[in-house]
């Protein structure tokens, strides 16, 4: 973009003008999340990006991974369900569970970037193959119950993502793992599902299914025995005998692995609590996403999991944020009204006579319109009453020129309405963010400016990385 806003004014507290802007400065400062020290610290081994769906988790994970790699770290990014073009940009368009080296990064600092896409069924199959002899493994893999569970269960993806994370960490080939979390119904699912799956797979019920006959033989278990055989009876009734049968076959075949599931889930959980792991909660400045982020922050604290901070994606800014929405709208109306007058009178040039023009640049005209009582007077040096322009005398104008001027006015009115929309958006985002900050003033935040389009290449990811690190919601630049 060739035209840039004037950042010196945009962030000058002395100029806190419009309502959105003053809100920004009235709060006590929020701690800033500094991403670079986090990813540069060799002690950081795992970064988990979590948050609700549609907030840019995958992009954030990829951008962080790239940034860390270009700063000399050997990174692997584990993505769960990346958008096709983002995946292609990293060269991982095949879903094959194999980390692949991403080409085209700046490796002058000695870093490497690898990326992989989780194949949950493959991951599950690998666990089975690793823990059962070939015959038993093939019995399990062919069981319809297993096939359904491994491909379809809503918690399988979460479990497998955490399983994969554990595997990557154990291989110790990378010094930083950046992991994206699955698009769950709730952002907390990836913490809960593995435990749930783990405890079911070696829980009481499984043992009932496995050994209905054996239990009765043990002294003191008589009551339990009656209860349990009744249970299997009920289960048979409810699920149908054939389903129960498949389930029992499945469970029997998986027998040797059960202890493993809970142990593995527990181990992953511990890994997430360990020093060297950092959580980034990703959100957009929208009510639902930030509500979900707040739940997450509370949950991480309850689980003793280390929160590094909040990444607030898609934040809007404006280079003209001292011009309030109300004032921009009033000005747009002024332009549109005068255009109507011009057209009615057939005296297009009159409005721009030096007199009229002069008056509009006097300090009197700077006072806010009645619709915006809160807008403070501008503190700029007045334009001194001298004619602002010399070429616009209104004399000798042609109809073409008048028409051109009208269309410029029309454009300007549009620009002002666009600005008013932007300012409304800004203040809404600010209110939403303030609500979060009020609840969790301790959480460090970094804001990432909204881009007009999606990111599909390393250049775009690099730009996101820069924004993550600088924490300035500037106006986005046109993608190169």
């Amino acid at each position, binding site marked *: 973009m060739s035209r840039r806003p004037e950042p010196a004014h945009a962030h000058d507290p002395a100029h806190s003008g419009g309502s959105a802007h003053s809100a920004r400065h009235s709060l006590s400062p929020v701690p800033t999340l500094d991403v670079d020290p986090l990813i540069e610290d060799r002690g950081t081994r795992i970064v988990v990006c979590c948050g609700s769906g549609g907030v840019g988790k995958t992009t954030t994970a990829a951008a962080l991974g790239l940034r860390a790699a270009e700063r000399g770290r050997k990174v692997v990014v584990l993505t769960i369900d990346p*958008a096709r073009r983002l995946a292609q940009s990293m060269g991982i368009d095949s879903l094959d569970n194999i980390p692949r080296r991403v080409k085209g990064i700046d490796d002058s600092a000695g870093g490497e970037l690898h990326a992989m896409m989780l194949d949950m069924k493959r991951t599950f199959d690998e666990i089975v193959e690793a823990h059962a002899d070939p015959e038993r493994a093939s019995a399990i893999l062919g069981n319809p119950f297993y096939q359904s569970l491994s491909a379809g269960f809503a918690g399988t993806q979460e479990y497998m993502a955490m399983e994969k994370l554990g595997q990557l960490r154990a291989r110790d080939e990378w010094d930083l793992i950046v992991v994206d979390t699955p698009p769950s119904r709730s952002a907390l699912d990836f913490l809960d599902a593995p435990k749930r799956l783990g405890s079911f797979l070696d829980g009481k019920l499984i043992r009932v299914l496995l050994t209905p006959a054996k239990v009765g033989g043990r002294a003191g278990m008589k009551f339990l025995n009656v209860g349990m055989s009744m249970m299997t009876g*009920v289960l048979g009734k409810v699920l149908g005998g054939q389903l129960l049968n498949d389930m029992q076959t499945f469970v029997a075949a998986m027998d040797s692995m059960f202890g493993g599931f809970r142990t593995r889930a527990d181990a992953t959980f511990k890994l997430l609590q360990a020093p060297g792991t950092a959580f980034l909660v990703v959100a957009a400045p929208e009510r639902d996403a930030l509500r979900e982020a707040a739940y997450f922050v509370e949950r991480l604290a309850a689980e003793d999991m280390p929160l590094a901070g909040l990444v607030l994606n898609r934040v809007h800014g404006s280079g003209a944020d001292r011009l309030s929405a109300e004032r921009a709208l009033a000005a747009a109306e002024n332009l549109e009204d005068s255009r109507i007058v011009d057209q009615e009178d057939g005296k297009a040039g009159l409005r721009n006579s030096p007199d009229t023009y002069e008056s509009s640049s006097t300090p009197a005209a700077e006072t806010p319109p009645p619709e915006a009582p809160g807008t403070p007077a501008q503190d700029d040096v007045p334009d001194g009453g001298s004619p602002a322009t010399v070429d616009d005398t209104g004399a000798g104008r042609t109809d073409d020129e008048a028409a051109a001027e009208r269309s410029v006015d029309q454009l300007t009115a549009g620009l002002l309405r666009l600005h008013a929309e932007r300012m409304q958006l800004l203040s809404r985002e600010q209110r939403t963010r303030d609500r979060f900050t009020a609840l969790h003033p301790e959480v460090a935040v970094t804001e990432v400016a909204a881009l007009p389009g999606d990111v599909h290449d390393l250049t775009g990811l690099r730009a996101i990385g820069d924004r993550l690190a600088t924490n300035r919601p500037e106006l986005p630049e046109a993608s190169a």
Partner: protein
Amino acid sequence: MSRLQVVSGKGGTGKTTVAAALALALATEGKRTLLVEVEGRQGIAQVFETEALPYEERKIAVAPGGGEVHALAIDAERALLDYLQMFYKLGSAGRALKKLGAIDFATTIAPGVRDVLLTGKACEAVRRKDRSGRFVYDYVVMDAPPTGRITRFLNVNDEVAGLAKIGPIHNQAQAVMRVLKSPETAVHLVTLLEEMPVQETVDGIAELRAARLPVGRIIVNMVRPGLLDAADLELVGTVTRSSVARSLSSAGLGGARRGGHAERLVDPLLAQAEEYAERYALEAEQRAALAEVDLPRHELPLLAEGMDLAGLYTLAKELRAQGVS
């Protein structure tokens, strides 16, 4: 009009809001609708600004013209216990099953069983009649799982039917599937005019169609107002800074000469316009991609004040005006 309206969409597109607005729109003029949620997120309660919904049908809003919206947060565990009670009269045994973890197991792990219970409950509400033989609800609107999982969610009945080849779960699944694949049902997809949600919508529609599930409409949510048209955008590229400055000045925004108030607004305002132009072009591409799918398409505006209860009624009115209900 199908009596079971399923609303799905990519995360972040506002499908819960659209489902709620649709329930409200369908309830207008004395109708009764039931809005169900299946993912335990209490999204409906949040949209209607009320306390968390229990597992029971309760009136949650009154529609213009006297209609009623009822809501139900379906809980798979409770649905299973209900189901056991209904068919097997398992009072205390149900509790014992729960203690053992069997209920958890069946609703969480056993593939598809959970989904059968959730969709089964919605289908039961669709078919339910009162004593005089009239349907209790004119429409049932389901706030369904997101686009990426919707086909599996709705089709899982097929999966279970394949898995449980006989038995009660099998029968239940078959019954549910008959409703879901009939014209009684329509699956709507909510999207934004952005690349990823649109791509996911197009893919989702293909999957639904392959599974022979009835696709209804595309609802484009949070559409930003068109503030500059193509002619304006062309002018953005050619207009001189000084003429815009003069125009701003004439609108009462300060001096147009270099360093004046109006002059200093020119760059940021034009930058915002360029950004708008880029988005405008992207949105046109996304509209074209959606047009290829050949489904009725509706657009709902982005509400400047953010989403609240008043906004919900605004969207409901908009849906009615567009003939969605």
